């Protein structure tokens, strides 16, 4: 992605200003604006960090601090779908290692990688607050719960 192509639309810029106005210090709007940038440009590249820094009058280093602190900002291109398997205590006891191993084998990728066709990025994450339905995973914005290898197959099959 070239530097020139990194720019919000007029409407998005108005949204940036609105978000900045919500906080006593406009830096408070950095997180939602970074999410906007991630949704718009696919992932938060260094160029995107510099662009966002320019919208806040910050040095790029300070945007980089925020992006590297949080796990939900992707610093490399991600797949069209993100499959995040919980491997925290409840899910682990309920069989998360099996689910994760099954996904790795089926997709042919390791945790943190993206399939060659750019379809799925696989992640292992900490507790997502659905222990009652362990093992579970988050597929994009949706929780998939009480997983079994068969159920995982059906879910992954449906992802295009």
């Amino acid at each position: 992605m070239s530097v020139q192509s990194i720019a919000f639309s007029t409407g998005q810029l108005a949204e940036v200003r609105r978000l900045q106005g919500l906080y006593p210090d406009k830096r408070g709007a950095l997180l939602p604006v970074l999410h906007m940038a991630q949704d718009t440009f696919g992932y938060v590249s260094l160029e995107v960090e510099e662009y966002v820094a320019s919208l806040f009058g910050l040095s790029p280093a300070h945007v980089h601090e925020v992006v590297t602190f949080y796990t939900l900002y992707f610093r490399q291109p991600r797949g069209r779908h993100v499959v995040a398997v919980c491997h925290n205590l409840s899910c682990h006891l309920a069989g998360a290692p099996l689910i994760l191993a099954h996904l790795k084998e089926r997709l042919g990728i390791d945790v943190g990688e993206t399939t060659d066709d750019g379809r799925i990025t696989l992640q292992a994450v900490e507790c997502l607050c659905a222990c009652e339905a362990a093992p579970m995973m988050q597929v994009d914005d949706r929780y998939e719960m009480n997983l079994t290898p068969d159920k995982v197959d059906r879910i992954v099959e449906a992802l295009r």
Partner: protein
Amino acid sequence: MPKLTIDGKEIEVPAGTNLIEAARRLGIEIPHYCYHPGLSIAGQCRLCMVDIEKTPRPTIACNTPATDGMIVHTQTDRVKETRRSIMEFHLINHPLDCPVCDQAGECWLQIYYMQHGLYDPRMKDEKVHKPKAVPLGPHVMLDAERCILCSRCVRFCDEVTQTGELGIFNRGDHSEIGLFPGADLTNKYSGNVVDICPVGALTDRDFRFQVRVWYLDTTKSICPGCARGCNIDVHVNRRRPHHAEGRRVARVKPRFNEDVNRWWMCDEGRYGYGFVDAPTRLVLPVRNDAGETRELSWGGAIAAVVDALGRTPADQTAIIASPKLANEDLFAIKTLAEARGIRQVGFRVPPPEPGYEDDFLIRADKNPNTRGAELMGLDGKVDKILNEATAHRVRSLLVFEHDLFDTGWRESDVRSALEAVDTLIFVGPNGSRTSDRAHLALPASAWVERDGTFTSFEGRVQRFRPALGALGEAIPTWEIVGRILAATGAPVTATRAEHWFRALAAGVPAFAGLTYQSIGDTGAMTAGTAPQAPAEAKA
């Protein structure tokens, strides 16, 4: 003004004073890493915990303003235990590579471990590894493993230089100091982050591995790099000369002066002392005759100067003094000029290119004593002297310090002027193309080898002191000029720089009333100049 009690001692402090500063006034040192009086408060290191009566648990002193009636204890068992635990936290992932760390000996992890730590280590697991020996820019080297994340360097770049190069990246025990990928720490004050780094995370690339800090001696001095006159400490290595291949000045550090540079100095000044130990240093008086160089004794050299001056009428003699000279040197030159009736005296030589200047410390005038030379009335037209020389109307020319070939003048003009004079006499610490052409070249001590004063652009007269012995046969410029004066029969009683300063104070109204004692460590203003606002961070 709140009145409070710290460890049983009462003190009244201005409103807003924090507990670290209030305790400091009582001579009580509260240990801390992230707090720095020149930076905003981060409250990050948690080491400055103190007990305050009527508060349930220890409180950080840096972010607690003194209030009336507050009763503070810095030495309770609970505080001591807190400090010990926090030291253990700070050292969990620290590599303990003191034997190969340049900070050893001036490291606040070492100092505070001995004062407040002394616990038995419980860390059995593998430590987190981070980048080591990463150059951040031309002057600063990062070891991320040694960093305790106090964020002083980050705040310095945010608040003082406002360049914001540094940040703390990642999270938890993987957090590390760094630059935005692809960026460099190139601001003009980058060396200061090494000074304020309390540990060995940021070290000075210039000083690294040159000499252990416990072999250094410290002398109060003034930076000669520009007209600001930043107060500095010169650290010299006299005890282990073989450690740094004979480099005597090991480093220069800023010295706090509220009215001049506060805690800071620029990189240009910090790394600009190389001329002191450069191979270009003149170490013996020499005579150059038709390409033949002959060493002289000082007696022979002074006699040769006096002989040249005696052969040349005063109106065919000129002096190009230097704004790099101390006030004492300049007054000796002024005395010489007046005694001999020499009226063509100047000092202002155009620089090869305009000097960089900013609104913080750096001045465009790269000379430490232009103001002193002006106040003494030595500001004759130097380009006129050059023209007169070219026209054979100046037969003897004394040049102090300047390399006239490294100026804003055309080289060919300088060459024809210098070729036209009968006797060119050069006095200075370092040789140059000008001294190469001089019939007599006399070695002067460098500023770190002698006593003296500079007058800053604001009119502040500040003392520098000898940190080293002179190289070779070099002697201070005031002494060279004094010997010339004495040899021409003038009464000269000055045997120390201070004597010349007394004569200056008596002879030049702007310096009236000033003495070495009244100048002290922080300087004194010349008459008719009010102290200006202290250098503030650009904010």
